[in-house]
Protein backbone atom coordinates (compact mmCIF):
# COMPACT_ATOMS: atom_id res chain seq x y z
CA UNK A 1 0.00 0.00 0.00
CA UNK A 2 1.38 3.30 -1.11
CA UNK A 3 0.70 5.58 1.86
CA UNK A 4 2.64 8.54 0.47
CA UNK A 5 -0.05 9.26 -2.14
CA UNK A 6 -3.46 10.85 -1.74
CA UNK A 7 -4.91 7.40 -2.18
CA UNK A 8 -8.26 7.30 -0.29
CA UNK A 9 -8.18 3.50 0.17
CA UNK A 10 -4.70 3.69 1.73
CA UNK A 11 -5.76 6.56 3.98
CA UNK A 12 -8.82 4.64 5.17
CA UNK A 13 -6.62 1.59 5.81
CA UNK A 14 -4.16 3.61 7.90
CA UNK A 15 -7.04 5.02 9.92
CA UNK A 16 -8.59 1.58 10.52
CA UNK A 17 -5.18 0.08 11.30
CA UNK A 18 -4.49 2.82 13.88
CA UNK A 19 -7.89 2.34 15.55
CA UNK A 20 -7.50 -1.45 15.78
CA UNK A 21 -3.92 -1.06 17.08
CA UNK A 22 -5.13 1.35 19.77
CA UNK A 23 -7.94 -1.06 20.67
CA UNK A 24 -5.43 -3.91 20.85
CA UNK A 25 -3.27 -2.04 23.36
CA UNK A 26 -6.31 -0.98 25.43
CA UNK A 27 -7.84 -4.49 25.43
CA UNK A 28 -4.51 -6.11 26.31
CA UNK A 29 -3.90 -3.74 29.22
CA UNK A 30 -7.50 -4.25 30.40
CA UNK A 31 -7.26 -8.05 30.19
CA UNK A 32 -3.91 -8.23 32.00
CA UNK A 33 -5.09 -5.79 34.68
CA UNK A 34 -8.36 -7.70 35.21
CA UNK A 35 -6.68 -11.13 35.41
CA UNK A 36 -3.96 -9.88 37.79
CA UNK A 37 -6.29 -8.03 40.17
CA UNK A 38 -9.68 -9.78 39.95
CA UNK A 39 -9.00 -13.33 38.68
CA UNK A 40 -12.23 -13.44 36.65
CA UNK A 41 -13.89 -16.78 35.90
CA UNK A 42 -16.63 -18.09 33.60
CA UNK A 43 -17.92 -16.15 30.58
CA UNK A 44 -16.30 -12.89 31.76
CA UNK A 45 -12.88 -14.56 31.78
CA UNK A 46 -13.49 -15.88 28.25
CA UNK A 47 -14.58 -12.46 27.05
CA UNK A 48 -11.57 -10.70 28.57
CA UNK A 49 -9.18 -13.33 27.16
CA UNK A 50 -10.45 -12.93 23.58
CA UNK A 51 -10.68 -9.11 23.61
CA UNK A 52 -7.09 -8.54 22.33
CA UNK A 53 -7.66 -11.21 19.65
CA UNK A 54 -10.81 -9.37 18.48
CA UNK A 55 -8.70 -6.28 17.85
CA UNK A 56 -6.23 -8.37 15.83
CA UNK A 57 -9.12 -9.84 13.81
CA UNK A 58 -10.22 -6.25 13.19
CA UNK A 59 -6.74 -5.48 11.88
CA UNK A 60 -6.90 -8.44 9.47
CA UNK A 61 -10.35 -7.29 8.33
CA UNK A 62 -8.97 -3.76 7.79
CA UNK A 63 -6.36 -5.14 5.39
CA UNK A 64 -8.99 -7.24 3.58
CA UNK A 65 -11.11 -4.09 3.17
CA UNK A 66 -8.10 -2.21 1.84
CA UNK A 67 -7.47 -4.88 -0.80
CA UNK A 68 -11.13 -4.69 -1.75
CA UNK A 69 -11.26 -0.89 -1.92
CA UNK A 70 -7.88 -0.21 -3.57
CA UNK A 71 -8.41 0.78 -7.20
CA UNK A 72 -4.74 0.60 -8.17
CA UNK A 73 -4.32 -3.04 -9.21
CA UNK A 74 -0.53 -2.88 -8.95
CA UNK A 75 -0.76 -1.81 -5.29
CA UNK A 76 -3.22 -4.68 -4.69
CA UNK A 77 -0.73 -7.07 -6.30
CA UNK A 78 2.07 -5.82 -4.01
CA UNK A 79 -0.20 -6.15 -0.96
CA UNK A 80 -1.24 -9.69 -1.87
CA UNK A 81 2.33 -10.74 -2.71
CA UNK A 82 3.71 -9.43 0.57
CA UNK A 83 0.90 -11.20 2.46
CA UNK A 84 1.71 -14.47 0.67
CA UNK A 85 5.39 -14.08 1.57
CA UNK A 86 4.31 -13.43 5.15
CA UNK A 87 2.08 -16.53 5.24
CA UNK A 88 4.74 -18.73 3.64
CA UNK A 89 7.47 -17.42 5.92
CA UNK A 90 5.32 -17.86 9.03
CA UNK A 91 4.37 -21.43 8.07
CA UNK A 92 8.00 -22.29 7.35
CA UNK A 93 9.25 -20.80 10.62
CA UNK A 94 6.54 -22.24 12.87
CA UNK A 95 6.62 -25.77 11.41
CA UNK A 96 10.44 -25.79 11.70
CA UNK A 97 10.21 -24.58 15.29
CA UNK A 98 7.53 -27.22 15.98
CA UNK A 99 9.79 -30.08 14.90
CA UNK A 100 12.72 -28.61 16.82
CA UNK A 101 10.47 -28.41 19.88
CA UNK A 102 9.44 -32.05 19.49
CA UNK A 103 12.82 -33.56 18.80
CA UNK A 104 15.21 -31.27 20.68
CA UNK A 105 12.95 -30.10 23.53
CA UNK A 106 13.32 -26.48 22.53
CA UNK A 107 11.33 -23.86 24.42
CA UNK A 108 7.62 -23.91 23.51
CA UNK A 109 6.53 -21.08 21.23
CA UNK A 110 3.21 -19.54 22.30
CA UNK A 111 0.62 -19.25 19.53
CA UNK A 112 0.21 -15.52 20.20
CA UNK A 113 3.58 -14.99 18.46
CA UNK A 114 2.29 -16.22 15.11
CA UNK A 115 0.58 -12.93 14.21
CA UNK A 116 3.59 -10.69 15.04
CA UNK A 117 5.85 -13.09 13.08
CA UNK A 118 3.45 -12.88 10.12
CA UNK A 119 3.33 -9.06 10.34
CA UNK A 120 7.12 -8.78 10.51
CA UNK A 121 7.68 -11.07 7.52
CA UNK A 122 4.91 -9.41 5.47
CA UNK A 123 6.38 -6.01 6.32
CA UNK A 124 9.87 -7.06 5.21
CA UNK A 125 8.42 -8.54 1.99
CA UNK A 126 6.44 -5.33 1.37
CA UNK A 127 9.58 -3.21 1.79
CA UNK A 128 11.59 -5.44 -0.56
CA UNK A 129 8.82 -5.42 -3.19
CA UNK A 130 8.64 -1.61 -2.95
CA UNK A 131 12.39 -1.46 -3.58
CA UNK A 132 12.09 -3.86 -6.55
CA UNK A 133 9.39 -1.81 -8.23
CA UNK A 134 10.70 1.61 -7.20
Amino acid at each position, binding site marked *: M*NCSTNNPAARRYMWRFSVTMLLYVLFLVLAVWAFVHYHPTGPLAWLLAVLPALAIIGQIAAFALYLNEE*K*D*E*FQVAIGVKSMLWGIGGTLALTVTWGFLENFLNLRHMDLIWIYPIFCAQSGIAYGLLQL*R*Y*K
Partner: protein
Amino acid sequence: MKNRLRVLRAEREWSQADLAQRLEVSRQSVNAIETGKFDPSLPLAFKLARLFETTIEEIFSNEG
Protein backbone atom coordinates in the same frame (compact mmCIF):
# COMPACT_ATOMS: atom_id res chain seq x y z
CA MET B 1 5.25 -8.30 -22.34
CA LYS B 2 6.78 -5.41 -24.31
CA ASN B 3 5.04 -2.07 -24.61
CA ARG B 4 5.37 1.37 -26.21
CA LEU B 5 4.24 3.38 -23.20
CA ARG B 6 7.48 5.31 -22.87
CA VAL B 7 7.30 6.40 -26.54
CA LEU B 8 3.61 7.29 -26.37
CA ARG B 9 4.25 9.25 -23.21
CA ALA B 10 7.20 11.09 -24.74
CA GLU B 11 5.13 12.05 -27.80
CA ARG B 12 2.72 13.84 -25.48
CA GLU B 13 5.46 15.12 -23.18
CA TRP B 14 3.85 13.44 -20.20
CA SER B 15 5.84 12.38 -17.18
CA GLN B 16 5.11 9.08 -15.44
CA ALA B 17 3.33 11.10 -12.77
CA ASP B 18 1.14 12.81 -15.42
CA LEU B 19 0.13 9.45 -16.87
CA ALA B 20 -0.46 8.02 -13.39
CA GLN B 21 -2.78 10.90 -12.57
CA ARG B 22 -4.76 10.35 -15.77
CA LEU B 23 -5.03 6.63 -15.09
CA GLU B 24 -5.82 7.18 -11.37
CA VAL B 25 -2.98 4.88 -10.29
CA SER B 26 0.35 5.48 -8.55
CA ARG B 27 3.48 6.58 -10.43
CA GLN B 28 5.07 3.36 -9.23
CA SER B 29 2.36 1.41 -11.09
CA VAL B 30 3.07 3.26 -14.34
CA ASN B 31 6.79 2.59 -13.93
CA ALA B 32 6.17 -1.13 -13.27
CA ILE B 33 3.98 -1.44 -16.40
CA GLU B 34 6.36 0.62 -18.54
CA THR B 35 9.41 -1.46 -17.58
CA GLY B 36 7.50 -4.71 -18.21
CA LYS B 37 7.64 -5.81 -14.58
CA PHE B 38 3.86 -5.79 -14.25
CA ASP B 39 1.24 -6.69 -16.85
CA PRO B 40 -1.92 -4.61 -16.49
CA SER B 41 -5.39 -6.14 -16.39
CA LEU B 42 -7.61 -5.94 -19.46
CA PRO B 43 -9.67 -2.99 -18.07
CA LEU B 44 -6.48 -1.00 -17.38
CA ALA B 45 -5.09 -1.89 -20.81
CA PHE B 46 -8.32 -0.61 -22.40
CA LYS B 47 -8.07 2.56 -20.31
CA LEU B 48 -4.52 3.10 -21.60
CA ALA B 49 -5.66 2.50 -25.18
CA ARG B 50 -8.50 5.02 -24.80
CA LEU B 51 -6.16 7.57 -23.24
CA PHE B 52 -3.65 7.29 -26.10
CA GLU B 53 -6.47 7.01 -28.68
CA THR B 54 -5.14 3.77 -30.08
CA THR B 55 -5.64 0.01 -29.70
CA ILE B 56 -4.25 -2.33 -27.06
CA GLU B 57 -2.23 -4.13 -29.75
CA GLU B 58 -0.57 -0.84 -30.69
CA ILE B 59 0.63 -0.42 -27.10
CA PHE B 60 1.44 -3.99 -26.03
CA SER B 61 3.08 -6.82 -27.89
CA ASN B 62 3.74 -10.37 -26.74
CA GLU B 63 7.40 -10.38 -27.86
CA GLY B 64 10.17 -11.06 -25.40
